[in-house]
């Protein structure tokens, strides 16, 4: 009982803390979220990033579905490589449930941008260990595992 009460207290505290933090740091909903450019800065010159106008791997696999631009980054920081879907995804497609289900079409673009950057800079994309963990049979483990699988397509690009 004592443990249960303590657990409840901790969870309540955690929930309240998370709510406050979210309130403090969450920006207002972005009306342009579906149409924004997703951008990475690649530590290579523009001619390496878009040789003869061809998109780098794996962005080239999207064909005409993507708009892609490059421009030199200021301060000798390489090249800004930007991409977005020609067909702006709907609000439903970019909603939280869609993102959790891995059905937001921007996720594959983000993943491809990150992979293109890594390939251009290092020649490879770092792979996780296999298996990444000794077991994935707890509830918390499943949540972290799911977050990890979505992680490459999520974030602030």
């Amino acid at each position, binding site marked *: 009982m004592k443990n249960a009460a303590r657990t409840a207290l901790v969870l309540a505290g955690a929930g309240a803390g998370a709510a406050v933090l979210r309130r403090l740091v969450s920006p207002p909903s972005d009306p342009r979220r579906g149409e924004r450019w997703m951008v990475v800065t690649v530590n290579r010159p523009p001619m390496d990033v878009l040789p003869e106008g061809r998109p780098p791997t794996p962005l080239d696999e999207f064909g005409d579905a993507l708009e892609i631009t490059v421009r030199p980054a200021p301060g000798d920081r390489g090249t800004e490589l930007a991409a977005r879907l020609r067909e702006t995804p709907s609000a439903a497609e970019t909603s939280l449930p869609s993102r959790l289900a891995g059905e937001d079409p921007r996720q594959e673009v983000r993943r491809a941008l990150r992979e293109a950057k*890594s390939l251009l800079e290092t020649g*490879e994309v770092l792979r996780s*260990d296999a*298996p990444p*963990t000794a077991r994935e049979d707890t509830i918390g*483990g499943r949540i*972290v595992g799911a977050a*990890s699988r979505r992680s490459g397509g999520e974030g602030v690009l």
Partner: protein
Amino acid sequence: MRAVCWEGVNKLSVEQIPDPEIRNEQDVVVRLLASTTCGSDLHLIGGYIPAMQAGDVIGHEFVGEVVEVGPGVRRHAVGDRVVVCSFIGCGRCWYCRNDLWSLCDNTNTNPGIGQALFGYETAGIFGYSHAMGGIRGSHAEYVRVPFADYGAFPVPEGVDDISALFASDSVPTGWMGADLGGVRPGDVVAVWGCGAVGQMAARAALLKGAERVIAIDRLPERLAMTERHIGAEVIDYTTTDVAAELRERTGGRGPDVCIEAVGMEAHGTGPDHVYDQVKHQLRLQTDRPTAVRQAIHACRKGGSVFVLGVFAGAVDKFPLGMVVNKGLTLRGAQMHGQRYIPMLLERIAKGEISTAHLATHTMSLDDAPRGYDMFKHKKDGCVRAVFRP
């Protein structure tokens, strides 16, 4: 192979897991020679670092022998004895090229989690939660090392495994605190925490020419160790008013550089510590910044405060007014080890930096849960438990 796994809050076990394999062309696999506990492990074992998964292999400070080499590796061969930097750097992104290795763009395999927590992700780190990439840790018989040409360093002849081991993380972390904290010849430097990182920060400050270095802790054996092996002055904060003592020892000015090497589970003696403990236990703040507050308060006007301790999120009652009105430079970082490790191995070889004394307890991997219990509760004067396969 055997590996030490996190199984839940305050639960560790030794498990049989599949051997690592070359997963990228620039990987090597090393056979473990020695791996050590780190204070930052206690934060994830205790559940204060998010995105841990039952079965995660922990450990990030290690030395090993190369047993397998990927086809893209140029600087290593089977049989090399190497110390491996705890943070993984690709060596070619803008951050690595600018010696900011713990900010590498290409080694965190879970960038979305790191970005959700910090705005931008850190580099990957061995054995330190899926927010930092979820790369398997070093408390295992074999360890896969990505981008090995940039993160694994040959151990000089004559440097034993245990002395080299601490060049993986504690020594470069401490050195970075003194270096990026801006220690200059003639400075007075105060260091909060006499664990391995604090001791190494104190030693670095002395080697960089500090006139006086004063280290602060509560554990008599660590204070004695810091005096004896590092050559720093010490203060026991349980019996001394630290701020008053520092003022007196610095001619009323306060230290020029204050280095915090304690982290999110700081202890203290005053009401602010009680306040921090209550809020921390209720998860109303993610970290206890007791030592950071003291460092900011004690620092001289226009001085520098460097936060070396690991913090994960938001803290309460942060004295921003002191930072602004005293004109302080406040800086923190995870460790840019690749920047320093070769130089530090040379200094260890020359005897300028002593590390072997940190390994107070050496044991088998099978005893790791006991080793962490000793380490966490400072039993038998434990400063670091070292695991051998």
